């Protein structure tokens, strides 16, 4: 399960839907893996406004990963600054280190196994082989 997915997931129980503590889910006992994927700078720029930045920061901290910057980066910060004197034309500016780090974190870092815990009711959703189980027994729906 990609870390980006956690940006969209919440506790599945009806009673938790109105509780802010139900998002984000808290990873626990997580085994991580890196899965290489092609970076798309346009996608990174346009996914930024969709990210619940504080939530994603807390997830990276809980996973013991390098923390995200305190605030959402400016879209401009995703491009390499061409003032590094190597003569690169501004029009072909590549992705910056921030962009590469964000891509590695959101799109390539995956939870292979572990649990996702609701901060409101404490229910634990299991992740096995990268697939999260959000099915609830009928009495918990």
């Amino acid at each position, binding site marked *: 399960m990609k870390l980006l997915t956690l940006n969209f997931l919440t506790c599945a129980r009806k009673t938790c839907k109105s509780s802010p503590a139900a998002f984000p889910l808290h990873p626990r006992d997580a085994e991580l893996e890196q899965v290489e994927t092609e970076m798309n700078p346009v996608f990174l720029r346009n996914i930024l406004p969709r990210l619940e930045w504080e939530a994603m920061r807390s997830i990276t901290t809980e996973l013991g990963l390098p923390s995200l910057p305190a605030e959402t980066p400016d879209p401009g910060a995703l491009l390499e600054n061409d003032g590094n004197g190597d003569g690169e034309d501004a029009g072909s500016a590549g992705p910056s280190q921030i962009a590469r780090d964000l891509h590695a974190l959101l799109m390539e870092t995956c939870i292979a196994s572990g649990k996702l815990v609701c901060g409101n009711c404490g229910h634990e959703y299991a992740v096995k082989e990268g*697939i999260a189980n959000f099915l609830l027994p009928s009495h918990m729906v």
Partner: protein
Amino acid sequence: MLPTPSTSHVNYDRIYEPAEDSYLLLDTLALSTETKFLQDRFAPATASPLVLEVGTGSGVLLAFVTAHAEILFGRADITTIGTDVNPFACGATAETVRVAVTEQAKAGKNPGHFCDCINGDLSTALRHGSVDVLIFNPPYVPTETLPEARSNQEPLDGPASQAAFERDSHLLALSYAGGADGMETTNRLLDQLPDVLKDVLKRICEGLGGWNAEVVGTSGQKAGWERLCILRIWRP
């Protein structure tokens, strides 16, 4: 004609095999009326739209949308996510998407961005207001009872056994059984729609109220009892 993603790796003993209804939905999505709707609604350089498919099955539809995002949405930077009550479908979906996306990349095209397929019920795992487009081909066959999705599905791989056969039959039943009038699961999803879909625009036309619905694809005259319809339901 956009190529249909390959699902040759999928085990149809326990995962719904793409059929007429699946292909009608694929064909309808590719119609110029529908791509125009999507492209007008999700203009490029705006935030990446999140597309959720509920009940992905083999993943053929989600893979189609992800792979052909540039044609359907006029932009490659869409985010796709799926759910299915069948854990085997989740694994199959991820593989179908991976194959389709790899093929697109090899052909020098830009596919969309697939997140994951979650083993869950309808849209319950998704945060309120997070989804822009929800696609659902529901179990619609009228059945006396609605089978229940079981939360403790231990994969029982290995030689065929009675238990494994029963589990597989149950999983297939979940994919087609719609309960009373074939509508029970569809009705449950319609109840979830207003919460899960995003209120993207400040509603300057608030006075219009309500949602719109239109039949945008049908299977036309058919022998047999099934007549298939694709509905587009949207909030103005």
